[in-house]
């Protein structure tokens, strides 16, 4: 069974600084997808970024980028120029490429942004 581990229950960052959230996963599959979702206090799950396992290039979305290390099964999220609105729970998620529809989530990292 696939597992997703987020080893940092809580993180904090100064406004305008950079922070990196860690995620590791365990799978025997070669075709899969990885995601970061943001859950602000409103509790809505918002897609931040996605990465296809077959792509070597790290995904980037504005201030958000990932460091995807396939051999190490690591998928960290870097937030640059942190803003107060970035404060939220961040969930790392995995989905096998074919044969299953379910997302497997990590336990989440609570990010605080200090003004």
């Amino acid at each position: 069974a696939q597992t997703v581990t987020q080893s940092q229950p809580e993180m904090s960052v100064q406004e305008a600084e950079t922070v990196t959230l860690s995620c590791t996963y365990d799978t025997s599959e070669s075709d899969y997808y990885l995601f970061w979702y943001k859950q602000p206090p409103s509790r809505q799950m918002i897609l931040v970024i996605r990465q296809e396992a077959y792509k070597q290039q790290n995904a980037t979305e504005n201030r958000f980028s990932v460091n995807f290390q396939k051999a190490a099964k690591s998928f960290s999220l870097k937030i640059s120029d942190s803003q107060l609105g970035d404060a939220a729970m961040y969930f790392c998620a995995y989905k096998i490429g074919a044969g299953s529809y379910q997302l497997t989530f990590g336990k989440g990292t609570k990010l605080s942004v200090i003004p």
Partner: protein
Amino acid sequence: EPEVTQTPSHQVTQMGQEVILRCVPISNHLYFYWYRQILGQKVEFLVSFYNNEISEKSEIFDDQFSVERPDGSNFTLKIRSTKLEDSAMYFCASSEPYRSETQYFGPGTRLLVL
């Protein structure tokens, strides 16, 4: 920008009662999902639905749960006889045709069973 919507936002019910949670997926999406998140825990997959039938379900999705797409826009989750442990946030999600890997979530329904 199209969004997944869910109603109600909050629901309080008595143990043993039936509840129906409603979702309106993004209009051109064909895959639909329900997840739940018990307070303080990780988000867990319940069920996926495609072409008017369940395509996958988890161990959590037992006989007390059912899903339905009663018309062209709504997608519902029914819990027949609620238990205290059903108290959770329930998220609906949907994904596009040919891109079922990326799921877009609704705002959730917070269910409290007393």
